[in-house]
């Protein structure tokens, strides 16, 4: 059986996934408890498909491949980009393939386990191409007022979801949605 494609994201109450200038400090400012949902994702994920903006930030600020899920996860990571780049690690692949091919390549590399999408632009492309199975969102109790939106305006059509689970983890609310494909 093929794994699922899951967008895993932290979001402010007002719908931002990064503050002005890609600031992410607000996610870690508030006390949070180790979340069983995150451990579940770490165990179920076989490969990651990220965007270039995500990767550049991960590499510059969060210890690159060794910093994913705080170093708790290791596996193949694909980065969707049109800019040429040399991957410095055997687990890292830069690709400029169309989104559907990039997703199936990542699923294949995950060997039947789930694929996690990191990065808003890649996730929006997945939603538009009906490739996304689930959204797992950690809602942070803050109004940011500005920044990068979960969904950039008019980047996707109206998309119905189904609430699968709701959990409270410290001050975070963790909601898992299934994306309904028409």
């Amino acid at each position, binding site marked *: 059986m093929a794994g699922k494609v899951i967008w895993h994201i932290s979001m402010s109450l007002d719908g931002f996934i990064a503050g002005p200038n890609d600031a992410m400090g607000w996610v870690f400012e508030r006390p949070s408890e180790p979340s069983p949902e995150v451990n579940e994702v770490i165990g179920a994920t076989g490969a990651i498909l990220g965007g270039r903006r995500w990767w550049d930030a991960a590499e510059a600020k969060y210890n690159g491949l060794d910093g994913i899920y705080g170093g708790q996860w290791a596996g193949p990571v694909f980065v969707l980009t049109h800019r040429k780049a040399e991957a410095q690690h055997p687990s890292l692949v830069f690709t400029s393939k169309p989104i559907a091919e990039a997703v199936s390549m990542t699923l294949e590399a995950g060997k039947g386990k789930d694929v996690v999408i990191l990065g808003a632009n890649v996730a929006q492309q997945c939603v538009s191409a009906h490739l996304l199975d689930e959204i797992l969102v950690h809602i942070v109790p803050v109004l940011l007022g500005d920044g990068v939106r*979960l969904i950039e305006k008019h980047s996707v059509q109206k998309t119905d979801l189904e*609430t699968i689970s709701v959990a409270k983890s410290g001050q975070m609310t963790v909601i898992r949605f299934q994306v309904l494909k028409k």
Partner: protein
Amino acid sequence: MRKVIYAMNLSLDGFIEDRNGSLNWSYPDEEMHKHFNELESTFDFHLYGRGLYENMAAFWPTADEDPSAPDFVIEYARIWKSIPNVVFSTSLDQVGWNSRLVKGDIAEEVNKLKAAPGKDMNVGGAGLASSFMQLGLIDEYRLYVHPVVLGGGKPMFPQLRDKIDLQLVETRRFGSGVVLLRYQRTEESH
């Protein structure tokens, strides 16, 4: 002290109306309508902007006269009618139905109401609520997050100059998949 509560239906991506101005994705089912009836009965003032006041005052005063209306709609209409409205508008000259018009300073008026004894108050209308947010007048947010991505429309929250930290006090899942997230102001933000 009385609290000002802002309760809204919104999409996961933070919109309260879709791109066509429609609310049909957020119509409450019976369970949620009953929940809103209970919530409504904890208020003794509605604080409305012009647009919402006009919509509400055009519908609810006679909604219980419709013989085909379900019980929970009739109940809401009766609760709503018993609660006076304070309407904040610089463009209206007069208001009707159980309402008082305020043209002056918002913060001064709201702080006066908050200091008076009574039940909680409900602020409504995205524009007025945005002013309340920026003035630090909202004590509790009740977000009813609907399982849908709208991809555009009217946003619930305004641009803010500074971020606002809140305290999560309750989460609740309804049968329809709607998730209530209830937040209060943190002590530091008072």
